[in-house]
């Protein structure tokens, strides 16, 4: 999963407390990585929210995977954010969401999107990993939990 997560965009402590707020926070954070323009931000937020309105991407066990296609990206990118208080997300099990993985895919790459989704649910299958992500306080910890290696500085 670390292959498509933009490390600099990971947010160990999300500040927003509602669904659209955390989605916008994650998209703004991805923007700083330079994969799309400032002018695309609101359009991407709208696209992800439109998708949420068709059915929550809260898959249960405090996890949500908000996502959308968008023409501004040339490859699939994602980021991870952790909410300590939890976000009301209308999730399948009705529980608040603490672990968010946001994905933005190019228009014409359905296979990449399917593989990314699989990779996310596979990584988060273990309750211990989800608990450790919720307890994580740094990007390094999150990066390691999603399979990335930290280079010593």
């Amino acid at each position: 999963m670390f292959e498509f997560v933009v490390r600099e965009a990971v947010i160990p402590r999300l500040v927003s407390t509602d669904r659209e707020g955390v989605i916008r926070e994650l998209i703004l954070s991805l923007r700083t990585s330079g994969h799309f323009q400032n002018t695309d931000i609101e359009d991407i937020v709208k696209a992800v929210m439109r998708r949420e309105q068709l059915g929550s991407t809260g898959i249960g066990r405090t996890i949500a995977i908000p996502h959308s296609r968008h023409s501004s990206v040339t490859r699939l990118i994602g980021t991870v954010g952790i909410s300590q208080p939890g976000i009301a997300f209308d999730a399948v099990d009705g529980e608040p969401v603490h672990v968010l993985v946001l994905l933005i895919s190019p228009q014409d790459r359905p296979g990449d999107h399917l593989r990314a989704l699989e990779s996310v649910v596979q990584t988060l299958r273990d309750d211990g990993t989800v608990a450790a992500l919720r307890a994580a306080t740094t990007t390094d910890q999150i990066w390691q939990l999603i399979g990335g290696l930290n280079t010593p500085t």
Partner: protein
Amino acid sequence: MIGHQELMMPTLGPLRKTVTIANPNGLHMRPASAFAQKAKCFQSQVTVTHGGRRADGKSAVELIMLIAMPGANLDLEIHGDDADQALLELSQILSSAGDENPM
């Protein structure tokens, strides 16, 4: 209460059918959730296999893990009293193109 007639019912084997994914984006989260939600409406056990992977049809997460691309053939196996109706309704979800905008 189990009626006399039900006790006399012969045990039927599972129903099987191979269904091709018509959705242009494959079995992504929305169709997987729709499938699992529908499968939960039935008493029958629903198993979906693809490429050597097996998923409980009542779990959207397990269905996502099949990585079923557009055009992939999925093997449905349904076991239980309402298997007939379940097979009909569940195979329809897989063979429908879905509303794909947005995904």
